């Protein structure tokens, strides 16, 4: 084994031949992807390119076609034959993966603190007091400890999204998925969410971020993947992909995206 191999960080996410169809339409055309531990991957591309579907397949919110393989930290997610999928096993596997949605999807009947406590309580990850203390620490981390008793309707969009990030972190996931998390926010609220994500990346969290925030992709991402028509068209470090794209489609997309930035 060479020194280079020894120094390589362990693989956190591995996708092998990930395919997804809706009826006759093939929306993911056999994606192969390996993400090392601690890497921040920005997924960019036009609407309908398959990037959100790819993200949602990783935690089986969308069931991939048979034959696809997804591994997080070496552990298979779902089943390569969806007919043999045990829901109980899938629920356990999903606790390893945190997900943050475009529209926050906080539970409106619970306070910010209860939202963050819900999954650890459901999975009995400690006593109620311990879980609440950990949840408060997470809310502190996203700068919302003083809003712990507020309901989602009493918070701004940016605050709701930060609570959603704290909620996703509550199960101490190995991998975080972010699905266009700033797209539904007013422009002045985007920065507070990106700041939390930036801090998370600096702490070494492995993150897959579907984003239209090109500055974030360039500054925070270790790697940028451009998707088109259900396939990875370009994959490299941010400077390579964003400053010197190889494919014409990437150039066209980036010239439009960077113009509207």
């Amino acid at each position, binding site marked *: 084994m060479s020194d280079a191999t020894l120094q390589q960080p362990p693989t956190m996410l591995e996708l092998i031949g990930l395919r997804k169809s809706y009826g006759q339409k093939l929306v993911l055309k056999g994606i192969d992807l390996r993400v090392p531990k601690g890497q921040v991957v920005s997924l960019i591309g036009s609407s309908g390119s398959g990037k959100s579907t790819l993200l949602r397949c990783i*935690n089986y*919110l969308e069931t991939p076609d048979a034959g696809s393989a997804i591994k997080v930290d070496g552990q298979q997610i779902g089943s390569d034959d969806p007919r043999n999928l045990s829901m109980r096993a*899938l*629920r*356990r*596997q*999903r*606790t390893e*993966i*945190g*997900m943050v*949605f475009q*529209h926050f*999807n*906080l*539970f*409106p*009947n*619970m306070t910010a603190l209860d939202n963050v406590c*819900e*999954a650890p309580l*459901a*999975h009995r990850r400690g006593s109620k007091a311990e879980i609440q203390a950990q949840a408060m620490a997470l809310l502190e981390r996203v700068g919302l400890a003083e809003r712990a008793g507020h*309901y989602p*309707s*009493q918070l701004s969009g940016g605050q709701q999204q930060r609570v959603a990030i704290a*909620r*996703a972190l509550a*199960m101490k996931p190995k991998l975080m998925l972010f699905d266009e998390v700033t797209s539904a926010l007013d422009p002045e609220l985007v920065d507070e969410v990106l700041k939390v994500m930036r801090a998370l990346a600096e702490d070494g969290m492995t993150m897959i971020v579907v984003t239209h925030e090109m500055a974030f992709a360039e500054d925070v991402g270790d790697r940028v993947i451009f998707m088109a028509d259900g396939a990875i068209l370009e994959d490299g470090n941010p400077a390579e992909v964003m400053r010197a794209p190889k494919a014409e489609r990437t150039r066209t997309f980036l010239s439009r995206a960077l113009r509207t930035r």
Partner: protein
Amino acid sequence: MSFDPQILAAYLPELWKGLRVTLWLFLAIMGLCTPIALAIALARISGRPWLAWAAATYVNVIRSIPLLVILFFTFYGLPVAGIYVSPFTAAMIGLTVCTSAYLAEDLRAGLMAIPRGQYEAAAAMGLPPGRFVARVLIPQALPVMCAPYFTRAIVSLKATSIASMVAVGELTSESMAALTETYRAAEFLGFAAVSYLVISSLLALLQAAVQRAVRLP
């Protein structure tokens, strides 16, 4: 047409007995229907094809048959099958079977009003289905379910009068018995109508209180 309060007073013990039977029947129906209807509604949205199919079939069959036919079936049909029950029990079973089908659809509408994102968030967090239903789905659906639930309760209250057709001595039955003996329609039908009105009004007040209590923050 004169109104004779004295004749009403003379029959008050029978009418009061009928009113109590109506109330018990109503409470029994709603007590049984609520969990059954909720289970049917959850089965329909469960995403499990056989469960959803069974629940949909129950709803579609039962709501296609007149309530009176179902009541006659439980009153006359159960003894044929060797099951002997009192008229009250026969009426309770028939009304429960029928009302639970309608109520299931009312509750399903409430459950379906919950945005898909809530289901996805719970799935992504790995919440078990029971906990999701109890902690997320029902608390959010309650404010939506409240008005149709109480409307169905009021409809069921009035539907208990049909139990008079299968020998249950409830309010309408006792009022009709008194009318037949005295030919005083205004007093006895008036008493029945006002009684239903009062109970329905109390249910409407309860609805307002419950709606305030379950409102989302």
